[in-house]
């Protein structure tokens, strides 16, 4: 296969890592961490792991609406230090960003601290080294760290989302560097998460959602599904959560230890979703007087204009499927929850080949492979 033709402008710069990084940082092209220089050779090595044309446009990234092409994804992947075999998942995630339901413009323009949470499922996630076990959202897992970082670098460099300038997230959080993990399918008592989103176990997928930082659920004592649900709800029901104000999803990262207890009592994932939906309320009086008016009475007068703040219940989510239950993490009695931006919906996208057929193995993208 001949080397793919590249379209990006070439930059002549002294062959010194520190000089290159100083230049990239000064131009606002980094996330503040050092980058791997995206030389043509490195970009081509990245492109060797996709069957897409480099010039294929995946989406226009707001607010500047710069084009994210397969080539610019490869450049971001190189800069992030991603393994080349991560390209199929990364391209799938970028395609998902373009789904109108994700509302990338809102995500890019908001003051909300939204990291692009990406949950990977299926054989390709495992094959490219994504991790769903111990410390999955923390340091140490190259594919997790670099795929998430590549997404952020792409948003910065094609959309113009330079933090503090066009990216107006008030405080941000660590998940805005990377917020990427696989589901711990091996230790889950239930079907893989992507199956609940309409796919088959042997298929691979990424699900993305703009999410706030995870909120820990320390529960060393509950020995029942009911007990763990009580602790999850107590953590989810926080007045600062956007989910009370909009119709969107919350995420429950259920640790394998907690999931085992819940499943031991005969609960399915759907039971957890339904219970959180049915019991997830706060009385309106939990919010400040100004918020009661601004968020509820003035916005939804038919429901709340004259409602009694002490007895009126405000729902966390509008339907059971708004609760995304993902088994993640390693040994230990810590789960976590995350609220979402609210004005976006979670998007699940299957990893496919260029012709739209599902990809069942990373070998289908392997450079020089029979089908590559």
């Amino acid at each position: 296969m001949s080397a793919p033709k590249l379209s990006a402008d070439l930059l002549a710069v002294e062959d010194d890592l520190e000089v290159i990084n100083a230049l990239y940082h000064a131009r606002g092209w980094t996330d503040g961490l050092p980058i791997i220089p995206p030389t043509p050779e490195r970009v081509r090595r990245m492109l060797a792991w996709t069957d897409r044309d480099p010039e294929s446009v995946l989406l226009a990234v707001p607010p500047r609406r710069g084009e994210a092409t397969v080539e610019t994804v490869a450049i971001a992947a190189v800069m992030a230090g991603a393994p080349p075999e991560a390209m199929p998942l990364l391209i799938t995630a970028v395609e998902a960003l373009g789904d109108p339901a994700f509302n990338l413009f809102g995500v890019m323009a908001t003051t909300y601290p939204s990291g692009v949470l990406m949950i990977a499922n299926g054989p390709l996630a495992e094959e490219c080294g994504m991790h769903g076990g111990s410390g999955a959202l923390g340091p140490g897992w190259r594919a997790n760290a670099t795929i998430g970082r590549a997404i952020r670098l792409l948003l910065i460099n094609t959309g113009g989302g330079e933090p503090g300038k066009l990216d107006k997230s008030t405080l941000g959080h660590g998940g805005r560097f990377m917020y990427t993990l696989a589901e711990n399918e091996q230790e889950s008592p239930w079907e893989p998460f992507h199956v609940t989103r309409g796919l088959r176990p042997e298929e691979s997928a990424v699900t993305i959602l703009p999410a706030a930082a995870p909120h820990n659920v320390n529960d060393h004592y509950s020995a029942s599904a009911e007990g763990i649900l009580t602790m999850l709800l107590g953590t989810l029901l926080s007045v600062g959560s956007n989910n009370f104000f909009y119709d969107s999803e919350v995420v429950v990262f259920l640790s394998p230890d907690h999931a085992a207890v819940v499943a031991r009592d005969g609960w399915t994932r759907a039971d957890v979703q339904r219970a959180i939906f049915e019991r997830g309320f706060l009385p309106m009086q939990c919010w400040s007087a100004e918020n009661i008016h601004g968020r509820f009475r003035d916005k939804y007068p038919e429901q709340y204009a004259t409602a009694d703040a002490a007895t009126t219940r405000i729902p966390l989510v509008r339907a059971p499927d708004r609760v995304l239950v993902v088994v993640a993490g390693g040994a230990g009695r810590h789960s976590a929850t995350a609220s979402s931006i609210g004005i976006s919906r979670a998007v699940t996208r299957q990893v496919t080949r260029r012709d739209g057929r599902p990809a069942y193995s990373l070998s289908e993208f392997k450079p020089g492979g029979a089908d590559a």
Partner: protein
Amino acid sequence: MPVVLLCTKPFAALARATAFGLGLEQVPMVVITHPLAGIHDTDVADRAAEAYEQVMRVLTQGEGA
């Protein structure tokens, strides 16, 4: 229809970039004092007065930020 893009100062660069990205680089923009949310009624009146003067100038004289 005459349009004026109104925003507070910290969001001016984002507003301009968004307009440019949408091909609306000529849209007139008026920048007012931040913040707009969570202020008292008297401050809302001040913001409105501040905006009114500039908006009228843009609409009648074509001078935007």
